[in-house]
């Protein structure tokens, strides 16, 4: 019987899933079991859309449909949690299993502490993630760096520090370092990310550390909660999956992979934050970049921290209506309301109509604030320092006292 803190190699007992699923199909099997056993009413995950470069969210209620979602898509840059808030009533009246990359997992917690998602009703299946690649850039990279027609590629993966493609007539891998130096490779926020194994989920799953005879045929599962242990144990008892203890050397390798990724992330942070400059120079850089803003609201719409019904950026006494580019106050409101809770998911930058490096600005602020106030977003249910988590109460406090801070940070 596995318990919180345990780690196992796991794989599907179903021949078909074993063959088609990633790394032995354990995640697919667990999700299928969760549906069959009625632990959840539905599974929110990602499937291939029009092609391999198009990740599409899918909500599955019939266990027979689970195979649709098998496999990983490294060009999938979606963030799922806000969909639960927007379209699934915050999981307040149904039980949902959801697959989560590190940024997704962090977003779940930030939405949960704002009462936008009921975590009691959510089964969180974490997926190790070394980063994802924007689809448009991936296609350009494959054409220009790999010399391959992107439409001919039938599989891509990130392994051993390389981005590898399989296509009609061959396989080709190029080191991520090399790609990223030339401006290709993972999204900039992924390069800065230090949440590679999402241990705040119920089960953190991935291939790092699977060696020996099971290499490529099993998933490394870290049990992170009692709920996770329950799913794993029940699924094993029902013979949906099989498990065995990990090889000690595999554990060591897993640790090394994680550490080397942290080192890379630290390097990327130093480089990217360094380029922002300091003080006045940084402010000027931000002013210049945000002067392109067309006020499409996609940064707000897609931000997992933004949830207010009464968004301050839409109050005409703060930000004049209809003006393009909007006054700088638009961006200042975002920085002051979000920065301490920014989880560096990158959506505000990736979806910005004018390619403003919003995520870089916000993440740089978050890192500074974390040093100052000791608050780390996305890892647990601790409340942030500044961001509104109880919108109505805090707005009321603001109007009566002139401060909207939950804690007196200056005491």
């Amino acid at each position, binding site marked *: 019987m596995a318990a919180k803190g345990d780690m196992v190699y796991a794989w599907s007992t179903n021949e078909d899933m074993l063959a088609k699923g990633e790394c032995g199909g354990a995640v697919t099997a667990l999700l299928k079991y969760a549906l069959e056993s009625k632990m959840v009413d*539905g599974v929110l995950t990602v499937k291939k*859309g*029009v*092609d391999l*470069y*198009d*990740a*599409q*969210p*899918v*909500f599955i*209620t019939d266990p027979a449909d689970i195979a649709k979602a098998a496999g990983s898509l490294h*060009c999938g*840059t979606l963030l799922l949690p806000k969909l639960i808030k*927007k*379209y*699934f009533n915050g999981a307040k009246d*149904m039980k949902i299993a959801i697959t989560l990359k590190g940024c997704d997992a962090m977003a779940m917690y930030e939405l949960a502490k704002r009462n936008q998602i009921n975590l009691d009703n959510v089964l969180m299946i974490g997926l190790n993630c070394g980063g994802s690649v*924007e*689809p*448009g850039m991936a296609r350009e990279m494959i054409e220009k760096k790999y010399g391959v027609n992107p439409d001919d590629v039938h599989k891509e993966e990130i392994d051993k520090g390389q981005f590898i493609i399989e296509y009609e007539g061959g396989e080709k891998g190029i080191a991520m370092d090399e790609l990223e130096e030339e401006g290709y490779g993972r999204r900039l926020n992924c390069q800065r990310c230090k949440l590679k194994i999402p241990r705040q989920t119920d089960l953190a799953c991935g291939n790092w550390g699977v060696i020996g005879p099971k290499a490529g045929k099993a998933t490394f599962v870290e049990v992170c909660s009692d709920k996770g242990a329950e799913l794993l144990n029940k699924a094993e008892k029902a013979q949906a999956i099989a498990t065995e203890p990990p090889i000690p050397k595999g554990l060591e390798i897993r640790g090394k992979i994680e550490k080397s990724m942290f080192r890379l992330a630290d390097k990327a942070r130093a480089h990217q934050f360094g380029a922002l400059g300091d003080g006045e120079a940084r402010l000027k850089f931000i002013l210049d970049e945000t*002067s*392109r803003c*067309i*006020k*499409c*609201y*996609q940064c707000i*719409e*897609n931000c997992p921290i933004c949830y207010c019904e009464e968004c301050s950026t*839409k109050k005409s006494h703060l930000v004049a*209506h*209809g003006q*393009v*580019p909007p006054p700088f106050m638009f961006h200042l409101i975002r920085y002051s309301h979000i920065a301490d809770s920014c989880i560096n998911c990158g959506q505000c930058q*990736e*979806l*910005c*109509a*004018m*390619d403003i490096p919003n995520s870089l600005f916000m993440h740089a602020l978050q890192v500074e604030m974390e040093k100052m106030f000791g608050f780390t977003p996305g890892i647990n249910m601790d409340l942030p320092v500044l961001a509104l988590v109880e919108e109505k109460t805090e707005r009321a406090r603001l109007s009566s006292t002139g401060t909207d801070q939950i804690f007196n940070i200056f005491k």
Partner: protein
Amino acid sequence: MEFKYVPTTCPFCGTGCSFNLVVKDGKVVGTAPFHRSPVNEGKVCQKGANANEFVNAHDRIKTPLIKKDGKFVEATWEEAYKLIASKLGQYSGEQIAVIGSARASNEDNYALQKFARCVMQTPNIDHCARLCHASTVEGLTQIFGSGAMTNSISDLADTNCAFIIGSNNFEAHPLIGRRIMQAKANGAKIIVCDPRRTATAKQADLYIQQNSGTDIALLNGMMQYIIKNGWENKEFIQNRTLGYEEFKACVMQDKYSLENVSKVTGVPAEDIKTACEWIHEADKTAAVYSLGVTQHIVGVDNVCSVGFLQMLTGNMGKPGTGVNALRGQNNVQGACDMGALPDSLPGYQKVSDAAAVKKFEDAWGCKVPAKVGITIPEMFETFDKEPSKLKAMYLMGENPILSEPDIAAIDRALKNVEFLVVQDIFLTETSEYADVILPATCYAEKDGTQTNTERRVQKLRKAQEGPGIAKNDWQIIADLAAEMGHADKFAWKNASEIFDEMAALTPLYGGMDYDRINSEGLQWPCPTKEHMGTKVLHAEKFNGMPDGKAKFLPIEHRSPAEVTDAEYPFALTTGATIWHSQSGTMSRRSESLNNECPRSWIEINTEDAKELNIKNGDVITACSRSGEVNAPAKVTPDIKKGVMFMPYHFSESRVNLITNPSCDPVSGTPELKVCAINIKIPKEA
């Protein structure tokens, strides 16, 4: 619970962005990024982001409506079809005018022009491209042999110099503006010429604020300066163009010297020089324009002059160069391609070409009127002034009482239409004049294709059922054709079959089918199934031109139809805001968009306002020779002194009450960018 994403193409502007419609239990409830589009890569502007909001608006038309005793009453399709068939059957072909829609799909427009030509036997079919880019179609066809944007949107990011004239793409085509900003980030120089210091102009490295209606003077002046400095591309001129000497003689006249041009345009000579130097120094220059160039009585000549600048400097046929005409509506390119034009069958095959007409007659199994029909302005003028000649009108998805110039004349014309059918998704200001209104499905409710400004044919995908008993536009047309005894020619089962019929008759689209365009679309020309589509036109030669060469012409500056005088001392120009689209039928029903921008305004230069004693927000009356309209003043230094601006989206403050109906003589495009006005300050009530 059912939850799914349906990728589709935006119903607003000609950029052709894609996004996903979020569908919950059979209803569209939101939009979400579709990263896979090569046009917008998952990004959208505010119109696209909120394109779900009007879809399930409570006031969608749900059943056919027939006007009885001045009131619209609900009717069945059978009643509506019978009435329309019997009425239209009373008129001869040329008594009927048909207007297609730049909003509707390629399949809808193909069906409508076939209905007009085949069933109605009328040559009179047109659509609102007349109002915007007919000047482009005419002008670029004259000089290049093809009337479309020569390059691709993504190309613009690779240019070294963007020469933007009369295009506020930051607001009108934001995801094209993004590509220009990418070029800027790569070190390209951005030149913007516009009488308004627009959001686009604010990004420019060089901003040229020319007087409205002086584009040819500006361009001729630039070309003279380029030639004087020996910066013309002699090899390109020699090998790939005709008519250079005559053109040169024209632009080298003293009236186009920097000094003289500076006077006419109001632009400092130094700035004109700088623009020329940057174009000369750039390896690749892309010219970008939109309605600021086309909506003039010299629209066609303006377009040609932009083309000449690119020919003169050899900036044609390569990525990052070209003449990039940015088309207005989502499918205005496609509606033209489909032959919703009085002189063209699908694919610009001319009705004056007997062989082309014969080809369509053979394929369709009916007679096709081999005669150039009349344009929209001619239709309304005829209804207004000679109502005995035109009797009936079939109008699909347009709102001319808001969009056409000089509304008073359009009002008289519409009242003179004996029998008017309006097919739309909402009741519009125009549908009030109708005898029968037919409910159509909107973009979110149908499969089909639309063609964006870079000639990319992309799919619309059905995400939900239409309201009530609304039908797809093409289906309504096919049913009506059947009612009138032509069932066999309109027996399509789905949109894909229409596309296949069209592609078989249209070489530009010949190699396309729904499977091939599924993920990224294809750019025409795409003549065969093996052809990968065309990113850049005219790479090797100018197909469709004599000797495959582009043609220079001598073009002189001419003043606008209305020049300012003592009585009407200001020049009014019109345009769009980022928050709305066209006559606002869709965008003004979107709460998110309309909250940001709920009313019209009139922009006045700070100094003019001071002289007139007008404060920001004062409601003032703009008067022209055609009429008058009220709007609150927006006092700003961003508009040139002596020039005023009004947006055209607002039915309660119709700028087209005052615009003048003068048109370009060749394209029929009205001069919506210059109209002489004066300002009255209403007395306190």
